């Protein structure tokens, strides 16, 4: 009985989340509909062109950009995986005591070592 009430309470927490998401979309949709009723619409080729400082755009819509920070993206993925494990661990580690802390310390230590290695290798320097 008590456990079914607990499940019901948890479900209602998810329900309010779902309802709020729908209400949020409804808010944006309502705002855009009201906007449609209020705004003028007079399209022209000039308005449809992309903005490039007021002159006609040069070339197409493709531009080559040097992405200098893709290595950061790899680093990010490593740490993001760690973060996913950190949160459940934070909630329960007191029950397991120093052993759990030491294991997480080892895990974080290896990652910190990885960051130090990347730093030493000059990955974090802007080139």
């Amino acid at each position: 009985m008590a456990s079914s009430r607990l499940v019901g309470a948890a479900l209602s927490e998810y329900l309010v989340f779902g309802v709020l998401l729908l209400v949020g979309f409804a808010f944006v949709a309502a705002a855009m509909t009201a906007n449609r009723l209020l705004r003028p619409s007079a399209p022209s080729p000039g308005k449809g062109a992309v903005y490039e400082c007021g002159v006609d755009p040069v070339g197409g819509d493709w531009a080559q950009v040097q992405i200098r920070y893709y290595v950061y993206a790899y680093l990010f993925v490593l740490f993001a995986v760690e973060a996913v494990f950190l949160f459940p661990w934070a909630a329960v580690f007191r029950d397991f005591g120093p052993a759990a802390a030491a294991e997480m310390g080892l895990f974080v230590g290896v990652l910190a070592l990885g960051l130090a290695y990347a730093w030493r290798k000059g990955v974090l320097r802007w080139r």
Partner: protein
Amino acid sequence: MLLELAVKVAAVLAAFLVLPLAVGQTEHKLMAHMQGRLGPMHAGRFHGWAQLIADGVKFAQKEDLVPDAADKPVFRLAPAVALLPYLLVILFIPLGPGDLVGSSLDMGLFVVVALVGVGVLAVLMAGWSSANKYTLIGALRGAAQLMAYELPLVLAAASVAVAAGTLSLPAIVEAWHPWWLLWQAPAAVVFFTAGLAEIRRPPFDAPIADSELVFGYLTEYAGLRFALLLLAEYVGIVVVSALTAVLFLGGWRGPGPESLGWLWTLLKTGALAAVVIWLRVAWPRLRVDQIQALCWKGLVPVALAQLVLTTAVALAL
């Protein structure tokens, strides 16, 4: 139960619509005074109090411009993707003790951090779909910045979770003790700074950089869609300030009866929002490489050290 659900959704929606406007109005006045200039003074006669309303009316009547070359569905969807995660975060922020919270889910902190991380999607969607070179450069800068600062944000939040031994935001406030102000101080600074970068506020506004990139990834937006993206920025200020107040400054805890706790939450959030505005006035924009260096060489190591410190002290206590 249905009534309770309706009240919660209505309250969250009200906070979502009112608080950002209050921050916007404060920003008008505070920036004007800090920079010794008048600011908007005409609308509504008395000190231009109606300027924000006038802006809203103007935005609502503007033509909806979508570039011919744009990826139109993505372009149209981006404002909603930028806005809605913050609306959902407000659901988890406890205003006061007891029932003054939209959802007291046990893994509230985890959900909140995940929702804040959706912002990078909106930036990439807006920048890429616009088919404009400036927006593309702005979006790539934004993606790099948001991904990098996600880390210190998450690590600082994890430090609080370790200290409190729970992921539920109301329970974290219950567990809070004034001495955390000292113990968790580095994490608080890291969290607030990374939060600023996550909402792309100055000095972390390189993805927008109006003097280099026209208006960054927002260049092609006009009318109500632009207004919605601006609203997302101000809801972001409210969310980051409120989260910092709840996680690190004790939320509703403070002198006085517990029934006035909601006032403490609002006061702390308001004070932090004022700091966000102050930083915009006082600080020059950081360069892209400086932004990355501050994150990887400053905030991430500090956050990791804080995590070790928090765990050691939590074990000793």
